[in-house]
């Protein structure tokens, strides 16, 4: 086919050029501001004073703070992801199975926080969870405690606020998947004598798994890179990887160390996406955002 008339070939070349021309502004911006700096970070992570070194990576094996920060970050990300699946699944299920009028309400209440500023939500939790805040007031009013308990400036506050921000990222891909599950399959299951629970477990749950994978990866990866929330609600004590990166740059001007941490974090993120892409196409995961 390619060796057909010269006119056709010329036309094909023109089409390819047009595609390239239309793509180039967006590609240029992302390449200049993201691809180039990432490559530069990779180089920085293995150099010191212009010479090759693995010193920055050696620290991962020897310095406690690196390990503890990565462990803490993975633990928080895992906690948030598990909670997001447990809380998000019923909400997505309701949105996918309720009559249209109600499902619009459920989805609206999920999308409203989704579109609200991360900073505003971190602030709201600071207000709610502070020593003399609403939650402590309620706990004391109910007689559950007589001392205000520390709800922020610790891991608890970080997990709660992070969960609040990332929950919609679980619900939306779950809903998208569940909505595509044909109702006939459930009816068929029921007509074959399966009870509602049985049909749910044997038919609906397995079919919704791609959504679970997409939401899980999205939430876990986003939690790994969280910055604003742990910074504001962790009180400097919940020291996540992002804070390790920013401190090394802002406070100590240690680009090599920051780059190495960044590269390790990026490799983790890329590995997770690669693993997930073997189950669910990458575009489906990204499109859900």
């Amino acid at each position, binding site marked *: 086919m390619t060796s057909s008339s010269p006119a056709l070939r010329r036309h094909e070349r023109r089409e390819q050029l047009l595609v390239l021309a239309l793509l180039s502004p967006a590609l240029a911006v992302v390449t200049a501001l993201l691809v180039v700096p990432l490559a530069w970070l990779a180089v920085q992570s293995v150099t010191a004073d212009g010479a090759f070194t693995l010193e920055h990576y050696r620290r991962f094996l020897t310095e406690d703070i690196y390990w503890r920060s990565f462990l803490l970050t993975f633990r928080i990300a895992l906690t948030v992801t598990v909670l997001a699946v447990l*809380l998000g699944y019923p909400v997505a299920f309701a949105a996918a199975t309720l009559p249209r009028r109600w499902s619009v309400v459920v989805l609206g209440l999920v999308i409203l926080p989704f*579109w609200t500023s991360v900073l505003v939500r971190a602030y709201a939790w600071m207000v709610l969870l502070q020593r003399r805040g609403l939650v402590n007031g309620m706990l004391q009013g109910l007689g559950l405690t007589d001392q205000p308990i520390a709800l922020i400036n610790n891991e608890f506050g970080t997990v709660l606020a992070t969960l609040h921000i990332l929950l919609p990222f679980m619900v939306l891909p779950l809903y998208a998947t569940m909505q595509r599950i044909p109702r006939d399959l459930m009816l068929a299951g029921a007509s074959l004598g399966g009870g509602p629970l049985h049909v749910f477990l044997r038919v609906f749950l397995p079919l919704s798994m791609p959504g679970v994978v997409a939401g899980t990866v999205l939430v876990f990866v986003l939690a790994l890179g969280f910055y604003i929330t742990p910074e504001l609600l962790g009180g400097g004590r919940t020291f996540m*990887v992002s804070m390790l990166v*920013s401190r090394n*740059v802002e406070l100590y001007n240690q680009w090599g160390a920051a780059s190495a941490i960044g590269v390790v974090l990026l490799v983790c993120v890329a590995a997770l996406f690669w693993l997930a892409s073997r189950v669910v196409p990458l575009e489906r995961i990204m499109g859900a955002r």
Partner: protein
Amino acid sequence: MPASLLARLTLGTVVALVLLFLVVPILIVVPMSFSNARFLTFPPPGFSLRWYEAFFGSPAWMQAARVSLGVALATALGATLIGTAAAYALSMSGSRLARSLTVILLLPLVVPIVITGIGVFFVFAKTGLLATLPGLVLANVMLATPYVVTSVLAGLRGFDPAQEMVARSLGMNRLRAFLNVTLPQIRPSVVSGALFAFISALDETVVAIFIAGGQNQTLTKRMFTSLRDEIDPTIAAISSLLTAASLMVVVLASLSARKSSTRS
């Protein structure tokens, strides 16, 4: 069937609780912003507009608000133009190369934001764009382009390219065919991509922490710095305004979607 009724009640309760968890923290900020107390207490002891006055009367906050609005508008415009062009090109070409280029365009979504922040900081430090408005807009365009690309690509998936072919065979040139035939049909997804770009630039904080400075600080960067020090009730007023802005955008986006669904 009492068992299924019980299951439904349990499901309903769980869903209601989760939805409350999602929405209440956002709504709680609004009454607090109208409080007359020096400190944040709930319920507010009395009504006052002092925190809104504090915001609108402060040259520093106003300057930050102007910067944020300007950057968000410029970002929405820029990201929509280059993102729509890219999405159109990607949907036109079915080659493997195009598919792998999509991954590059979506990169800003997956790279942890702090890493993006220090990367952009590095590029801007070398090129003199640090603490400038064009620098802020450029960084936000980069961050927002994937939203436009995914949104417009989704819109193009439901569009039959044969229609554009027909228009061209009837003598329209490519650009006119796109503007007159294709664009009107994918407009809802272009509009929601633009709105998403606008909101993402209005909210962006982390990259701004690294690259914004001096006169060109954004609202969110200022809020972040001030939150690190103390819980200032002025932030409650700003938060309420930002939430109202988000709400407006959600309503606009859903109206745009509904308009298109009633037409088709």
